[in-house]
């Protein structure tokens, strides 16, 4: 027999002025199961909570009803009071007589009192069916997976690993480093990207808590927060990394030449290659599509010259499985393809290049040794036109959003051009200069003065060839005239776009992505690092265009989230989750279909009645269940119970007034 204690709060005058609290107490005292009822000025105060604690002990109460403000306000407070008295905190029910009665029926005290009595009666009825619940603890595998080895992935991996949590870092290409490794200098301080990045890359390679899996892709992710299982496909590199010394004899002798991705195809690499000299790991891989040994079975030079015998043409793709607890997705971005800008002659004129190509040209380790050259004739350009917002902020041909970094890197490019070619002149066609960031505006101002760059506010309408020059015709909106600039080289500040593999990755991870292909955060303001799926976090441009400082901040934020998640051996979880009664479950699996979290799986149990066979029933993973109750209402057999909102509890409420 339940023994219920009811505590009615005055909330100062908030309740007492509009509800006859003593009358409410008298009314609830009439209920059979109520063994104690009282009132107090502020139940949430320490003395108020003390009253609850005392009454629990004195009257041997089995459940508690507090009639006060909304449970969304003080439910946690009162649950703690129950805990303090040694009672299961989930035996509490809150009757919301403030927000639902005294505050909304201020003109009719009698009606408000009546309603408060009903609300108390409902809470008492519900509390009678309350059961002791216990926080769920889910074991956690303390290992994180970082997908993507750009600066975001590197930073996240290092930060997590520094907290002595093992990290598996998966990178698609043969080396980590990402886009940042292709950059020359970085705005607004113009420090050398390689100089600040390569130490971190080396740290990753040598860190005892980081397992680096380059040249690999994530194939499958199963499980739930704290308990994921990941399948990683390590592509065949045809080079045994364990025996390879990284001497480079192989790629020096390889006869096959293919465009070099690292240098944006400006020069050639070999079919066996390391992407760039500072690559981590600094071991070559064979490009299976272009290697004649692998495609036609002819050549084999690399194997002949490899003294340690690291070349293995028979190597197969390898599937690696790891148990992990959290995922950081840092797949970066792609450069947008400017082909739709036909009026610029993209594709027809060799001397129109993208900003990343320019970046490679001015890079000291680039294909032109740091001096920009015209691709058509190799001449050093004097007049260079930079066009911004190629693709960005263009609904007709490109994408709607601002790519955020182009203003700054174009400014940087004008400086780099000025440094490398002293007698050059840069022209920048722009829509706006967006330089919001620490030191950014100053950087732009200084660059304008130092380089003498001509800034032209307006769009370019046409580029045509005149002799060996490119004629760039655009509008200078500030003087309202069409201008034509004779250029040796045109650099397009192409937009940042989401990696094209993102939708597929999102599907296999079970997270969502937006219309551009960027992965979606759980909340745009308050949960920008998390995804809707617990235990999966986002770092860097895979979520939206960002510059390096922002990317690094977000990566560190991810690391903090992961470390927080792994701070205990188990995760605590609200016990308001669904459970299945196997006896009643008919195994129709409709609940599996409606569960938004994939928390329901099937299980086999003995049939019983002495029959030696198994039957299928549903099984709820309480680590994943969020307690929405969709499955409960859909279950025709009423085999599912949602703790805290059981059918008897709700029906008791319905029939108690």
């Amino acid at each position, binding site marked *: 027999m339940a023994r219920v204690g009811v505590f009615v709060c005055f909330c100062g005058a908030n309740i007492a002025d509009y509800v006859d609290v003593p009358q409410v107490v008298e009314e609830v*005292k*009439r*209920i*059979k199961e*109520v063994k104690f009822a009282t009132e107090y000025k502020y139940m949430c105060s320490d003395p108020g909570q003390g009253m609850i604690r005392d009454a629990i002990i004195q009257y041997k109460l089995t459940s508690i009803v507090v009639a006060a403000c909304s449970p969304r306000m003080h439910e946690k407070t009162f649950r703690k009071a129950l805990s303090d008295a040694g009672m299961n905190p989930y035996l509490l029910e809150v009757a919301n007589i403030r927000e639902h009665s005294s505050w909304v029926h201020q003109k009719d005290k009698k009606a408000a009192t009546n309603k408060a009595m009903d609300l108390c*009666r409902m809470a008492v009825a519900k509390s009678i069916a309350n059961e002791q619940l216990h926080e769920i603890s889910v074991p956690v595998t303390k290992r994180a997976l970082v997908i993507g080895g750009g600066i975001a992935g590197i930073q996240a991996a290092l930060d997590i690993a520094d907290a002595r949590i093992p990290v598996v870092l998966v990178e698609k290409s043969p080396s980590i480093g990402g886009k940042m490794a292709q950059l020359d200098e970085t705005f607004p301080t113009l420090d050398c990207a390689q100089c600040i990045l390569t130490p971190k890359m080396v740290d990753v390679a040598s860190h005892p808590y980081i397992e680096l899996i380059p040249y690999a892709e994530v194939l499958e992710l199963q499980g739930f927060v704290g308990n994921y299982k990941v399948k990683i496909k390590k592509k065949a590199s045809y080079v045994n990394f364990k025996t390879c010394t990284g001497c480079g004899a192989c790629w020096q002798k390889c006869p096959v030449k293919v465009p070099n991705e690292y240098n944006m195809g400006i020069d050639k690499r070999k079919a066996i290659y390391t992407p760039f000299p500072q690559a981590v790991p600094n071991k070559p891989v064979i490009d299976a599509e272009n290697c004649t040994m692998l495609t036609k079975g002819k050549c084999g030079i690399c194997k002949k010259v490899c003294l340690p015998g690291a070349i293995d043409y028979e190597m197969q793709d390898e599937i690696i499985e790891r148990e992990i607890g959290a995922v950081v997705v840092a797949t970066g971005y792609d450069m947008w393809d400017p082909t739709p800008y036909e009026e610029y002659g993209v594709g027809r004129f060799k001397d129109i290049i993208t900003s990343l190509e320019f970046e490679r040209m001015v890079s000291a380790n680039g294909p032109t040794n740091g001096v920009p050259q015209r691709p058509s004739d190799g001449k050093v350009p004097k007049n260079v036109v930079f066009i911004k917002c190629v693709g960005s902020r263009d609904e007709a041909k490109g994408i709607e959003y601002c790519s955020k970094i182009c203003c700054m890197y174009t400014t940087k490019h004008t400086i780099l051009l000025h440094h490398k070619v002293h007698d050059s002149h840069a022209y920048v066609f722009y829509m706006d200069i967006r330089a919001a960031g620490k030191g950014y505006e100053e950087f732009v101002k200084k660059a304008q003065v130092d380089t003498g760059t001509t800034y032209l506010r307006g769009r370019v309408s046409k580029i045509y060839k005149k002799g060996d020059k490119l004629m760039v015709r655009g509008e200078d909106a500030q003087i309202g005239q069409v201008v034509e600039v004779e250029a040796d080289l045109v650099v397009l500040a192409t937009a940042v776009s989401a990696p094209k593999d993102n939708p597929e990755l999102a599907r296999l991870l079970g997270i969502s992505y937006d219309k551009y292909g960027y992965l979606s955060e759980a909340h745009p303001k308050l949960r920008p690092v998390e995804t809707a799926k617990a235990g999966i976090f986002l770092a860097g441009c895979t979520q939206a265009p960002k510059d390096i400082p922002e990317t690094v901040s977000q990566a560190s934020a991810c690391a903090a989230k992961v470390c927080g998640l792994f701070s205990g051996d188990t995760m605590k979880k609200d016990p308001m989750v669904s459970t299945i009664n196997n006896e009643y479950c008919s195994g129709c699996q409709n609940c599996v279909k409606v569960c938004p979290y994939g928390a329901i799986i099937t299980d086999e149990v003995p049939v019983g*009645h002495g029959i030696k066979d198994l039957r299928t029933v549903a099984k709820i993973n309480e680590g994943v269940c969020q307690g929405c109750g969709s499955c409960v209402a859909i279950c025709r057999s009423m085999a599912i119970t949602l703790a805290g909102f059981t059918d008897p509890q709700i029906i008791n409420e319905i*029939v*108690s*007034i």
Partner: protein
Amino acid sequence: MSFTTFVTDKAGLQKFYEAVMASRETYAPVEKFGKFDFKRVARLSECDPVSPIAKTLSIKPLFFPRTAKVMKYVATSAGTDVSEVDEDPLAVKRVILGAKHCDARSLQVLDKVYNWDYIDTDYQKRRENTVIISTRCDKADTHCFCTSLDYDVENLDALDVLVVNGADGKTYLEARTAKGEALLGETFTSDAVRVTKEEAAPEMKKQYDAFAASFRLKMDYKEVNAKLAKIFDTPEFENVSGNCVSCNTCAFVCPTCHCFKISDEKVKDTGVRYKSYDSCNNGYFTLMAGGHNPRPVKYRRWRQRAMHKFVYYKERFGENLCVGCGKCTISCPVNISIFEVVSQVSAAAGNRQ
């Protein structure tokens, strides 16, 4: 004591019925959705006293309601206040028209169990206050086998007034009990002819003989009783119950089944306790609180049903718990006949010996 017999015609019978309705609360078969159920009627036009047996539910609910309130209670912190339910609407003086012989007989069978170790006063009161007027069937239905069972259909005294439509076109009314005699005496109008029992006997006998000859189904209940008692463990039950869908209808329409369940309904502080029909074909019928279920499979429940009707009840009370009305067979969605089942099972028993 000798009882009166009247002879009249159709119109006279109608007048009699109308007079009964005017003076007493009357229950008679009323059609709804193509099925006749006994309901309270005020006018003869509302009902059909000669409703077809195949489409008429039994009169059992008028004595043992499908749902009856047992008690009412108010539970507060001051204590639990139990009160009797409001007056029983079925316990007033009343008349049932158009009952079939088998229905009337079922009450005789049920009387035994209701007057056994515990006397059900509600049932008793309803029985005492009720006069049953029964029209003898002219023709047996496909599934009827009342004449094959252990009671004298012709001279049945479970009914109070017998109505027979004679082959000569006349209608004979015979009081069979004192209650019937009283009713006839009170309400019968003068244009009827009072005859002695002997005078009416030939015509009534003729009608009965024609009726008795119309039975498709015939069995020897004594043989069934004896054989069934010996073959509790025959696998034949598994065969005969094969196509049963466990729908429980047979028990709910059976005029002699009397199993019930108890349930409470409580809203706010006030509750009512109900007693409602249940069925032994229900898989959870014998489920005990501890979780054990002695009859978890269908054939065992079927065996219980057949054995209870033809063995156990007979052993305890000397009567078969079956009146041969065929209602279960008619209502069965897959037309399983209790007649067939017991015949088949006892035949199988015969083969075994």
